[in-house]
């Protein structure tokens, strides 16, 4: 069933007036006849609404910094923040030297009441000393949590002193949970810190190979980036660093040498992508390695950027080989999935990326949205000059970079850049809305009440979201698919990832459990009748039927 404005109005009527006015602006029905459909996003969460959002600490330490494997990430705060971001996000990593992989460790200053009262700087300094002594990491980060800002612990000063003392890259991130309105603020804070303190610290001046690239905004959930890198390597690219899945301080410090930066998750990493372009002259390309068609398009766009005939040829060869491998495998899954509908509500990028993959399986996305994306992720970067920053996000500092005198190089001539930009999303992103089907619905910061209401109206066949709402539709008998942690499966990216995804989604539909929800006594009569031999017609009747 399609949704219309009147239905949305009815849903919103349950809200107190102020909430209704607010939420109305976060919900849009896609209509391609209207050129620039606006949505409100990246505004404060309504208290008591049951949001799915997290905080700036989660966006900074949990998402961007945490995956960097050869660094120890110290959380300065009471125990919870470190504990909950310990191994719960599936950013995989491996190292040649097992003593240089710290991802299984959770390091917290475990602030106590006395630290709140008298300050926690000394304890933090002790923790740094202990970490250096025990782990000898390649670098250390310190992430702030809510109370740190309030009590005035100067973590930047502690980091600076420790840097001098240990001769190690030790940096601090002021990502207190209350900053901004969501995880998004934390991405920005982490981007600033990595750009300021790590990227460019290495002494490489030239790229190690002809096609050296970085992958930005890819966190190797369930091995995604390994699958993407497998294909890229086969074509002939050399990936300098993935930011930050399976990433390392050692690789990140020479990220400046790449000739092209790929951007998978625009929301979390576009700041660094922009800054790399300004500082080193490296353009970025919006790619999407989720879905077969999107992967092929991304590979072709990359080849077009480098413009080398051999590379273009090799790209097509690899695509052909990969397709030959996966296409037969896909067929049985398509049969199960075809004709179904999905909700796709994920953090800040996958709400868009997975729609194409669903489409390839024959599944239509009828509702999509983000927890914490900004208007440019919905509407495209053209809208950037028109976004007003509000009081809640103004305090997230912008880092201003200038061209690096020694290292700035135009990677491709200006005219060629302009020409390419007409064909491929070079240093640009068009957003999610334009890719959506007319009549589908876009919801920003979807909450529990709206989830139930939209399910009631649209009756999706599959609900893809996160852990907090997974079991809600499932209780209703609707299959769910977590698109943050892939329900502990993966990879889902690239060619082979598409097969994994298709298999998992088909399994969700085909599992026999859905047949057992209603007990047989609910739809069978209590009394079983029997047909007796009877001369009279009237007694040929089942009792209780």
């Amino acid at each position, binding site marked *: 069933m399609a949704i219309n404005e009147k239905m949305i109005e009815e849903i919103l009527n*349950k*809200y*107190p007036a102020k*909430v209704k006015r607010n939420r109305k602006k976060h919900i849009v029905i896609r209509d391609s006849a209207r050129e620039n459909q606006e949505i409100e996003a990246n505004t*404060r969460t*309504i*208290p*008591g*609404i*049951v*949001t799915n*959002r*997290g*905080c*700036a600490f*989660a966006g900074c330490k949990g998402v961007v910094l945490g995956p960097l494997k050869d660094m120890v990430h110290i959380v300065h705060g009471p*125990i*919870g923040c*470190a*504990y*909950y971001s*310990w191994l*719960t996000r599936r950013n995989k990593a491996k190292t040649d030297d097992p*003593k240089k*992989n710290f991802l299984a*460790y*959770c390091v*917290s200053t*475990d*602030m*106590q009441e006395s630290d*709140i009262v008298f300050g926690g700087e000394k*304890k933090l300094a*002790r*923790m740094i*000393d*202990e970490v250096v002594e*025990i782990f000898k990491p390649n670098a250390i980060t310190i992430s702030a*949590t*809510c*109370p740190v*800002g*309030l009590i005035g612990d100067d973590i930047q000063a502690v980091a600076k002193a420790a840097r001098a003392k240990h001769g190690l890259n030790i940096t601090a991130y002021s990502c*207190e*949970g*209350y*900053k901004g309105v969501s995880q998004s603020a934390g991405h920005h804070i982490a981007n600033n810190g990595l750009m300021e303190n790590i990227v460019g610290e290495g002494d490489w001046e030239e790229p190690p190979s002809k096609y050296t690239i970085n992958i930005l905004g890819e966190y190797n959930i369930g091995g995604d980036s390994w699958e993407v890198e497998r294909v890229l390597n086969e074509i002939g690219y050399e990936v300098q660093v993935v930011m930050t899945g399976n990433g390392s301080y050692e690789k990140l410090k020479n990220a400046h040498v790449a000739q092209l930066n790929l951007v998978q998750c625009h929301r979390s990493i576009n700041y660094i992508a922009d800054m790399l372009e300004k500082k080193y002259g490296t353009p970025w390309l919006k790619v999407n390695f989720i879905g077969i068609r999107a992967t092929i398009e991304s590979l072709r766009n990359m080849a077009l950027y480098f413009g080398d005939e051999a590379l273009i040829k090799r790209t097509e060869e690899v695509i052909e080989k990969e397709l030959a491998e996966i296409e037969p495998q896909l067929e049985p899954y398509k049969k199960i999935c075809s004709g179904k509908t999905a909700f796709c509500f994920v953090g800040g990028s996958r709400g868009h990326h997975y729609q194409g993959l669903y489409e390839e399986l024959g599944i239509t996305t009828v509702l999509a949205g983000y927890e914490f994306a900004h208007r440019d992720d919905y509407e495209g970067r053209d809208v950037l000059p028109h976004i007003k920053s509000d009081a*809640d996000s103004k*305090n997230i500092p912008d880092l201003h970079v200038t061209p690096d005198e020694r290292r700035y190089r135009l990677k491709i001539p200006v005219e060629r850049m302009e020409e390419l930009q007409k064909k491929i999303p070079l240093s640009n992103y068009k957003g999610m809305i334009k890719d959506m089907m007319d009549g589908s619905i876009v919801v920003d910061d979807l909450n*529990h009440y709206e989830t139930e209401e939209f399910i009631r109206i649209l009756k999706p066949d599959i609900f893809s979201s*996160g*852990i*907090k709402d997974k*079991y809600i*539709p*499932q*209780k*209703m*008998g609707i299959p769910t698919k977590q698109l943050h942690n892939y329900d502990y499966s993966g990879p889902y990216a690239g060619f082979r990832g598409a097969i994994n995804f298709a298999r998992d989604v088909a399994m969700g539909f085909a599992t026999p459990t859905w047949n057992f*929800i209603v007990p047989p006594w609910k739809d069978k009569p209590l009394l079983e009748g029997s047909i007796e031999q009877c001369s009279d017609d009237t007694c040929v009747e089942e009792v209780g039927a």
Partner: protein
Amino acid sequence: MLDCTPKKIIKRTGGMINPAKTCQPIGAMYAALGIHNCLPHSHGSQGCCAYHRSHLTRHFREPVMATTSSFTEGASVFGGGGNLKTAIKNVFAIYDPDIMAVHTTCLSETIGDDIPTIIKGAEVPEGKLVIHANTPSYQGSHITGFSNMVKGMVAYLAEATTDEKKEQVNIIPGFVNPGDMREIKRLAGKMGIRFIMFPDTSGVLDSPMTGKFEMFPAGGAKVEDIRDSGNSKLTIALGYYASSDAAHLLERNCRVPAITLKTPIGIKATDELLMTLRSKFVQEIPYELEEERGQLVDVITDNHHHFYGKKVALFGDPDILTGLTEFVLSLGMRPVHVLTGTPSGTLGGPQGIFEKEIKEMLAAAGLEGRVKAAGDLFELHQWIKNEPVDLLMGNTYGKYIARAEDLPFVRVGFPILDRGVHPYMPIVGYRGAMRLVEMISSALLDRQDRDAADEDFELVM
């Protein structure tokens, strides 16, 4: 696995590495979910609430509903009163619980929001309730948070309305699974004694699949029953850390005598619970429970050669550990390392009770072991490197140590994130003890099977 953990132990004072605890509010959220038609509310920035809901959901594989005040930087500086008032208004308008149970975080505690005053100034609809507990994350652990929220229930709800106490017992089950709560209720029911259990998450966090989502599932302690707990003859607090503060508050406020017992894990602790009920309510223990007990003793005797004399390392929450240590001792096992992340003594309570109690048990068995409160898993791992064990028992985080040291591992406690079904299956009571015996035996024998040479591989064990 965990290759960066050295055998050599240095003294650390900078904090925790791989904690064996988490922070207060998740315990308060769990406790609040044990009230029928209640919506827990987290007064802080929304990241806490998201983390706590996610973590409980991963353990139970169930929806976990809670709201948050969603602090911004402005509220963090100038106070979160406005946020909480807005939240209260929205929660009742949109979600309509009978009761909201507010807990705090390190943010609202540090800025000093005065919750009772904010609640008084809020629009609470007629007949609806808002209760609260202060749960600063920089004190104690998730167990302290559970205890504080149960205290909040007593403070706001329990009333002594009759002069004479009723023939009923209050049972505060502690931070245990819904399956455990069901088992404790079954035991009390078999004794034929009317009881009020609060909080009670059975029917909430183990709810059935019916094709319909219930935001407020059928389970949970009813508000009127918690009120009536002030009229009971006795409160049994199961677990010193999670339950005894609330029981003593009930004693002070409503003159209901409080008894603290161990979480009834194993024979002795279950015997103690039944004996207490027997003597206070003059009820004979029914044959059915005697039969269960006898079956348990039979099973242990039958299988003692699987586990007798084996060295075991235990970690987890303090109340679970005191019961579990006592039980493995009664199996003839040797608990050589026992560690909790929760600091000893509840707030304002006696210090050192955890270490003292465990050490006394070990001494009584003629054993010595390393025992620590406010310890972490990094240290536990180092202990194991220095004195190896045959078995590790604890929550999911132990699997990394188990893999690193190639140890048989039994998952017990909170949280268990990598296996299903466990929240339904009790570890308390005689039945729960039997399940533990099976888990311990299986872990040890699976290892023996795996390691055996072909010629030593046994059909019958």
